[in-house]
């Protein structure tokens, strides 16, 4: 039995008053708070072994390189990826958005003939198809929409059902023999719905397409194993999984990473550089990690990954399920509509809602005055809001540190909103 009250105590930021109320943080889908051990890891790195990695031969350089690679292995262990030297499947990025853009740019480069024969499997041409869903965050939607525009590929998408779930049942129609790339969210950042990705992945592979998973909202909350899921690529960020900002990870099946041409060019990604001959690039993951890496943050992200595994992803999942159940009671309030699955099945503790007659900005202001932090706006997912006939909404999202009382405090506060605004 995990003591979640003690776990909450590991997050120093939560121990404060906001507007005279104890802080209730229900905005983990935007960014999670950090446990003391992660906060310490970053400063400890700077205090003891800070140096550039994969360059230089002095002692600190060796130690920091080792810490960097160990962090990669810790993150790999969290998501079921390979980490042995020469088999690495985790690429360090500047965030999930950077990882998805890296991938879209690399596929675009392959489409221009870069990367030789090995990269031909990624090449797009007019008539080929890229498939996403209407539930995507703008960071999936836009890089792949732009990739379609650059290559002449057709941009298509999965529709959503009335609860905002990706219509996986339509995979056979949406994904065709011409589909080359499929990019889908694992968990909707607005709806909290866990996508039934298995039929989509099966269909994508049936037609020879690559499947890219947006794992931003799944890795922090669910036990995720990329090998078992059979995804080809996955991107997520460290700051939503109790790690630092400025860091993300891109998973790729080893053979695909080896075939993929680079997207960013510069230091530490090239074996031989010439004035008059094409450069020879390094093997992955270095090929995709041009320039100085945010080493202290990566090391701290590795600590976060270990910390999550120590708590246990199954335990985290079960705990947050109890928060989700409480948050879903928002739907019982008169005039409040949940934008996403109303049943606590195949969903996480991210619950978006609309308060009839009160604009999300006003809801958010009222809720904030009670010391409760939720997100208001379109959550970088405008199409899913349009799906619900809205532009913006309110979103509460749980983390490992939340208690059922946190959710109850929110439900109680939301219950007063319409009276305050006289609707």
């Amino acid at each position, binding site marked *: 039995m995990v003591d979640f009250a003690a776990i909450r105590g590991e997050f120093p930021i939560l121990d404060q008053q906001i*507007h*005279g*109320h104890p802080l209730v943080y229900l905005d983990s889908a935007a960014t999670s708070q950090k446990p003391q051990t992660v906060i310490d890891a970053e400063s400890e790195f700077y205090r003891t072994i800070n140096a550039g990695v994969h360059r230089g031969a002095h002692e600190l350089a060796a130690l920091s390189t080792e810490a960097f690679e160990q962090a990669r292995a810790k993150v790999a262990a969290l998501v079921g990826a390979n980490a042995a030297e020469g088999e690495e499947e985790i690429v360090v990025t500047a965030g999930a958005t950077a990882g998805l853009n890296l991938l879209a740019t690399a596929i675009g480069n392959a489409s221009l003939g870069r990367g030789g024969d090995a990269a031909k499997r990624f090449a797009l041409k007019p008539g080929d198809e890229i498939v996403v869903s209407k539930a995507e965050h703008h960071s999936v939607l836009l890089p792949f929409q732009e990739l379609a525009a650059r290559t002449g590929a057709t941009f298509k998408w999965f529709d959503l059902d009335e609860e905002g779930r990706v219509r996986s049942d339509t995979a056979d129609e949406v994904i065709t023999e011409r589909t080359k790339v499929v990019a889908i969210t694992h968990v909707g950042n607005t709806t909290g719905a866990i996508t039934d990705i298995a039929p989509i992945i099966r269909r994508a592979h049936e037609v020879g397409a690559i499947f890219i998973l947006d794992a931003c909202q799944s890795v922090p909350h669910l036990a995720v194993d990329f090998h078992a899921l059979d995804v080809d690529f996955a991107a997520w960020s460290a700051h939503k999984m109790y790690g630092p900002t400025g860091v993300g990870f891109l998973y790729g099946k080893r053979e695909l990473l080896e075939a993929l041409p680079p997207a960013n060019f510069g230091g530490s990604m090239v074996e031989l550089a010439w004035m008059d001959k094409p450069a020879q690039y390094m093997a992955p993951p270095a090929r995709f990690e041009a320039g100085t890496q945010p080493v202290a943050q990566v090391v701290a992200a590795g600590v976060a990954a270990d910390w999550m595994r120590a708590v246990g992803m199954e335990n985290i999942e079960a705990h947050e399920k109890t928060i989700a159940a409480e948050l879903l009671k928002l739907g019982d309030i008169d005039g409040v509509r949940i934008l996403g699955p109303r049943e606590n099945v195949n969903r996480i503790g991210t619950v978006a809602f609309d308060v009839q007659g*009160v*604009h*999300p*900005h*006003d809801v958010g*202001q*009222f809720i904030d*005055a*009670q*010391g409760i932090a939720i997100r*208001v*706006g*379109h959550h970088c997912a*405008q199409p899913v809001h*349009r799906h619900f006939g*809205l*532009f*913006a909404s309110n979103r509460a999202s749980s983390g490992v540190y939340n208690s059922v009382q946190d959710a109850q405090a929110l439900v109680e506060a939301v219950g*007063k909103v319409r*009276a*305050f*605004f*006289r609707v």
Partner: protein
Amino acid sequence: MADYGMSSEELEQMYQEVILEASKTPHGKVSFTAGDGQQATIGVDSLSAGESTLSATHEYCVPAQSHQFNPTCGDEVTVRVEISDGTDGKPQHIEHLVWDGQGCSISQASLSIMVDLVDGKTVDEAMELFHAFHKLMESRGAGLDDEAMEEELGDAVVFQGVSRYPMRIKCALLGWEGLKDSMAQALAQMNAKEA
């Protein structure tokens, strides 16, 4: 009223009676679109499409409109103004001012109070009020140190509480930006005609 905790004072300072009231029945709000008055699309400048259909109620007036959009929350407004060109013997003034849009209570109330304040005013007076309101919203809750100016702003001084919240200042200014831009367009058209 129910107890909203220690923060109720702050909250009520922001959402003053005048604001809540004005946001419920905003002045100057009309429907520009045919049919049920609902905007068909949100976040698309659908309302700017009607440019060519703008017509003046008097021949001495020049009509113009401005579409304003806040991408963070989707607040959206189109302000339509008619400016007299001076041929009616009076200084250039706002002959007619209406708007259509949707948004939070702050943006809706601000538009309503703006209409009450500037409709019928000369262009110069309206611009003075625009600058005074801007100053108020930049005051971080302190208000203006100019009593005469506060007097001029009338009901609009209730937004002093809003100026404490950087995230909401744009809500209060949305309509005023639309006013300024539409007036500038009308004046530019007049100048073009004269030239």
